[in-house]
């Protein structure tokens, strides 16, 4: 064949090579902090003091993980993160599920079961997304106090649901607005009512956006520090607040290995969610942005 084709082929190969090289470097750069954290968490305290930060652990030990999970002192209590980790689960699961379900219902109603004033309601919900967290701390604390829910996990759940509804409604509304209304009409003609149509047609047809909503909400709720430190107290703190307290309540010098292990434990669930459901996240976010 002609030499022209070969040149193009070679230069194509060469540019591929550079692209992959750059991507590989970027990946290493991003994974670098994770490596340092993991490596440090498996080292003994002595090795950390003498060795260099980047070295691979010489005496591989799980002690710091055991300590971070069940023995380290947080304030005066020396039983590790495990209780607080459980708090975070107890908080995140209901908050994520309830806000997602409410968001789906809202999105369904705002697009397919409209009522007078639906644009205003949606506008107010959108507005809710942009209210800074700090500005609602005091009014929210007053409301929770009145409801006798201050300091507990239930109160925290309610705060997260309230804050989450704006976002989840936005997700589902934008997804359902692209579902043809005639599908709804067809189901009505077949004898289906409001909840039948919602549960049997709209929910199964919107799994990607459920994934987006769940990942988004889970990340926000799990990683939240401000609401946790403001509205929960004592034994009810979520793991993020406990991590902060653990790192700050060292008695005899910094235990970097324990801190690192504790940080990884705290971040693990959100990492896991992204690894397991990340592809749905991208798919769901793209859905509707391009006409199929």
């Amino acid at each position, binding site marked *: 064949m002609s030499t022209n084709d070969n040149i193009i082929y070679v230069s194509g190969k060469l540019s591929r090579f550079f692209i992959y090289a750059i991507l590989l470097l970027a990946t290493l750069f991003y994974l670098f902090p994770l490596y340092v954290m993991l490596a440090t968490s498996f080292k003994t305290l002595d090795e950390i003091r003498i060795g260099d930060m980047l070295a691979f652990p010489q005496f591989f030990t799980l002690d710091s993980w055991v300590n971070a999970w069940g023995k380290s002192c947080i304030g005066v209590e020396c039983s590790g993160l495990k209780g607080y980790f459980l708090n975070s689960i107890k908080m995140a699961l209901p908050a994520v599920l309830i806000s997602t379900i409410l968001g789906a219902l809202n999105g369904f109603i705002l697009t397919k079961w409209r009522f007078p004033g639906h644009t205003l309601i949606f506008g107010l919900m959108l507005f809710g997304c942009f209210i800074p967290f700090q500005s609602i701390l005091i009014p929210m604390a007053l409301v929770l106090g009145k409801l006798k829910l201050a300091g507990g996990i239930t109160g925290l759940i309610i705060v997260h649901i309230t804050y989450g509804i704006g976002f989840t409604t936005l997700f589902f509304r934008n997804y359902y607005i692209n579902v043809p209304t*005639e599908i709804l009409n*067809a189901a009505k*003609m*077949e*004898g*289906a009512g409001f909840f039948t149509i919602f549960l049997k*047609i709209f929910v199964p047809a919107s799994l990607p956006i459920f994934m987006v909503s769940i990942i988004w909400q889970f990340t926000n709720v799990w990683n939240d520090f401000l609401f946790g430190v403001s509205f929960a107290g004592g034994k009810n703190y979520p793991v993020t607040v406990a991590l902060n307290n653990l790192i700050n309540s060292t008695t005899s010098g910094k235990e970097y290995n324990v801190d690192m292990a504790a940080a990884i434990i705290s971040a693990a669930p959100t990492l896991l969610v992204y690894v397991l459901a990340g592809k749905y996240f991208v798919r769901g976010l793209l859905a509707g942005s391009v006409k199929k």
Partner: protein
Amino acid sequence: MIDLEIKNIKKNFEKTNILKGINLEINKGEFIVILGPSGCGKSTLLRIVAGLETASSGHVFLTGKDITVLPARERNMAMVFQSYALYPHLKVYDNFSYGPNIRHEDKKQTDKKIKETAAVLNLEDQLMKYPKQLSGGQRQRVALGRAMLRNPSCFLFDEPLSNLDANLRLIMRRKIFSIHQDLKITTLYVTHDQLEAMTLANRIVLMNNGYVEQIGAPLDIYDKPKNIFTAKFLGSPNITLLDGIIDASGKNIKVINSKIVFPLSGVSLEAGQELVLGIRPEDILVSNKNEANFPAQVEFIEATGGLSIIYASAEGCDIRISTTKRISATLGDTLYLKVQGMHLFDKKTSQRISTINYQQNP
């Protein structure tokens, strides 16, 4: 026996009147086509009958029972949509069984019915596919099958064939026709395609601008259009419309601003009466100089093989002629035209006064 009755239905969207008082009585088993230009309110009327839209005033009766405020899901009607509206996440089989399942119909019975329906519609091999894997024609057949499985008291079609290509449209039209022949279920069919209306309907309801212009059997409407709109809307190519006036003798119709004159026959009109003459393209013959009513210059010829359509101009008037003869004429040639018949409309009211047939009364 009257199955479906629409009584003085009106619909306003804010300040626009979409429907301005529609009355319609439909007999059991009848195939009614609601025909009209886009924006005439025909789809709104269908949606009110379906219960997907609420009327501003008026009533809908089904077998004597007032169903005006009954929710769509309780009306036992089946609807086929232009966009098919299949459930995208369900396979064809599940699209079929969805309705029967939520209505808690017997599963074995449903399965049997689905297989029968699929056989009628040649969909046996598609049952395990998703809607997105099907062609447009197959999707429309699934939508049709889903409506059939409803076992409805009434079929509603909302421009069901508009998204299909010409050939498929013809095939589906015959399918719908034969299904109606078999099931004899009262059908309301909305379209803007006059060919579908003419071929499918027992009666056509011709709508315009929120009103019913005329109701009647297809050929009755074609032969006896009530007014100018009806005459213009049905027929392809369009009817030729000329302004005319009864001359002083009262015996002739003179076309305004021209020397063309037609004898008045079969009806006596006052001298000076202003008219609009409607001449169907097939009622104009290409003739010879002696027999012709007037000469015209050819502007354009569409030869489609079986039928030739000639656009001509006579003293500034546009004339449309259709003929099965092949005419060998080119732009600017003079043709001598003979008119076999025409509709006379009152210029002021647009209503048809009379129809002249020169073949019977030469």
